């Protein structure tokens, strides 16, 4: 849009209020939800090829779950009052954000409980072979029990299955409600669509699966155990990623397409934003470079006969691309919706700074922290079952 003399934004609307923290919050919960779904497929639906990474997926989800509240607490003007979300939630709106307290608490409990059940027998073994602090820790994590009977292990298995099953809708809720947070805002045309929860959930699944592929390969490579990766596992994950990604991409394009066809005055403003200030981040990056290109790479990996080497290298590369795509998608939704000002006559602005309260440096720290946490957790929770010789 050349003529900036035509630009007008309401005085309170000039800068985006929801910035990087709100971009990465759905990103982090998305990875959690996606990783959990992978683990549930292995555990609950007994997809054999995914069994080697079932535990890894859970710990991967946990390492990101720990940091879910960080961007939000950083964003709030009064983080010390955050507990009101739990004590005085507005269920008469109902405010979707009010669901956060209970959904997050419920899901955290579920994930931790499931992990404790799955790892209980491992920990009882490890208790015997470790000393000092670690021994005490394992004692705590097994809640002081030492039962290794067949009945006990059966109960462990049944309940973890139950938790895994319940966890699927709960994980969907953990991320679906975020989609509703945006989808329910009629004031912002770019957000107001019933497809928003579905699009968010699908891209969450995509980010989780891609994250698992990438980190599985990287961790095995770093620890020199790349040969332990079963080709079957990666192929299944890649196909899963492609399938979810197709659904995700189709829904995103469908949403755009129907609105473009209807061409309401609201759409005119959305398209001016997408073709104007959002052109690079939306069309070039999110759609072309990070959606269309990965679509073909994933298709190739899924359908053609590729060598293991190509599978691992290209698989990790395309997973990294997808992880970036989901970040761009979150950016385009959150920032784009605000840039598309409510005055319907211009664009608001957003210029993230490196060192500010919700700036780039903090964002990077919050995205790196889960990876570091994964490493720390791997010291306590063995990520892989012992390889059977």
């Amino acid at each position, binding site marked *: 849009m050349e003529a900036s*003399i035509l630009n007008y934004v309401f*005085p309170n609307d000039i800068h985006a*209020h929801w910035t990087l923290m709100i971009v990465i919050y759905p990103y982090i919960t998305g990875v959690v939800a996606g990783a959990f779904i992978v683990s549930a497929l292995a555990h609950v639906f007994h997809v054999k090829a995914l069994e080697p990474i079932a535990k890894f997926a859970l710990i991967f989800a946990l390492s990101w779950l720990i940091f879910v509240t960080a961007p939000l607490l950083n964003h709030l*003007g*009064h983080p010390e009052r955050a507990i009101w979300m739990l004590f005085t939630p507005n269920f008469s*709106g109902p*405010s979707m954000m009010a669901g956060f307290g209970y959904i997050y608490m419920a899901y955290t409990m579920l994930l931790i409980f499931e992990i404790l059940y799955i790892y209980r027998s491992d920990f009882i073994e490890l208790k015997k072979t470790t000393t000092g602090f670690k021994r005490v820790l394992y004692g705590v994590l097994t809640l002081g029990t030492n039962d290794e009977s067949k009945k006990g292990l059966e109960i462990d298995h049944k309940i973890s299955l139950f938790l895994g099953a319940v966890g699927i809708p709960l994980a969907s809720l953990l991320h679906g409600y975020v989609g509703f947070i945006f989808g329910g*805002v*009629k004031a912002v045309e770019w957000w107001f669509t019933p497809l928003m929860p579905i699009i968010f959930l699908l891209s969450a699944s995509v980010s989780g699966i891609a994250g698992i592929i990438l980190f599985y390969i990287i961790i095995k490579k770093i620890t020199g155990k790349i040969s332990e990766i079963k080709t079957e596992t990666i192929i299944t994950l890649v196909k899963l990623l492609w399938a979810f990604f197709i659904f995700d991409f189709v829904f995103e394009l469908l949403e755009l397409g129907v609105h473009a066809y209807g061409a309401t005055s609201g759409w005119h403003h959305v398209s001016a934003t997408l073709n104007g200030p959002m052109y690079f981040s939306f069309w070039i990056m999110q759609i072309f470079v990070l959606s269309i290109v990965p679509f073909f790479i994933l298709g190739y990996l899924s359908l053609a006969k590729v060598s293991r080497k190509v599978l691992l290298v290209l698989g990790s590369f395309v997973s990294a691309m997808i992880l970036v795509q989901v970040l761009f998608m979150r950016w385009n939704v959150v920032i784009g919706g605000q840039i598309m000002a409510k*005055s319907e006559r211009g664009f608001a602005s957003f210029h993230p700074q490196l060192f500010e309260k919700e700036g780039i440096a903090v964002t990077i720290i919050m995205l790196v922290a889960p990876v570091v946490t994964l490493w720390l957790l791997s010291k306590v929770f063995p990520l892989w079952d012992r390889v059977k010789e």
Partner: protein
Amino acid sequence: MSLLRSFVSNIIDFESTPKFKAIEQKMVDRDRRGFIEKVVSGSIGGSLFLMIPMQSSLFAEVLGDNETITLEENKNKNYAFIVDVTGCIGCGSCCVADRKENNVPDGQYRTWVERYVIDIYDTVYVDSPDGGENGYSIPRDDIKEEVKDAFFVPKLCNMCEEPSCVQVCPVGATFTSPDSFVLIDKNHCVACGYCVQACPYGVRFINERTKTADKCTWCYHRVRKGKLPACVNACPTGARKFGDLNDPQSEVSKIMASKEILTVLKKELGNEPTLYYIGASQEVV
């Protein structure tokens, strides 16, 4: 001159009252010679008022800070806020008054005035430098085409009956009071910013001093003391009107009862605003 008198008499009919005529006569009957000398020499300045006879005070006013209208009484009123776009001169007095009355930080606005300029090709240019607080004495110099029309539009909270902001607040910090005012509890708000996103009219913001959400409250604290909102009190032309629709003598009631066409902003969103506009053409968003 006669046009002016008719303009003035549209606002008040005080001039035709006997009281006014009496005052006028008294002024004329004063010391003529002294008066003429002083005026001709140009020294009388602002002291002309000394010539006006003393009047006993028409009433006593106490600037009380106590609630003079209880919540129960206030519930029986049905307030409406009407903005007459044709009357707004873009002086910015409303913005000045609001900023001081409500301690609004600079760069943030509970109310603002927009300037609309429409050229002969129907292109609409809108701006609001400093929210219109400094008035609009300086015209836009960046419009090359010939201008067809221009007007000023005050903006403030629409005090919706179905407020999006109340619906989305996660902690119940913004709410509709029993007397139908949408208010914010500054001690409870966590400043998540959801209400700011949800408001279609852009009237909410996160106050950088209190670090909570904030917005125009139609000066609830003034209304509960029987006074007009600060912006209405400040408006020199009466473009901003506030009153009780349950009082048939109020200006707003008379307007509602008349054939005057009232509009609301973004009606299609279904928020049911109770802020009405007179003379807001279709360009106003």
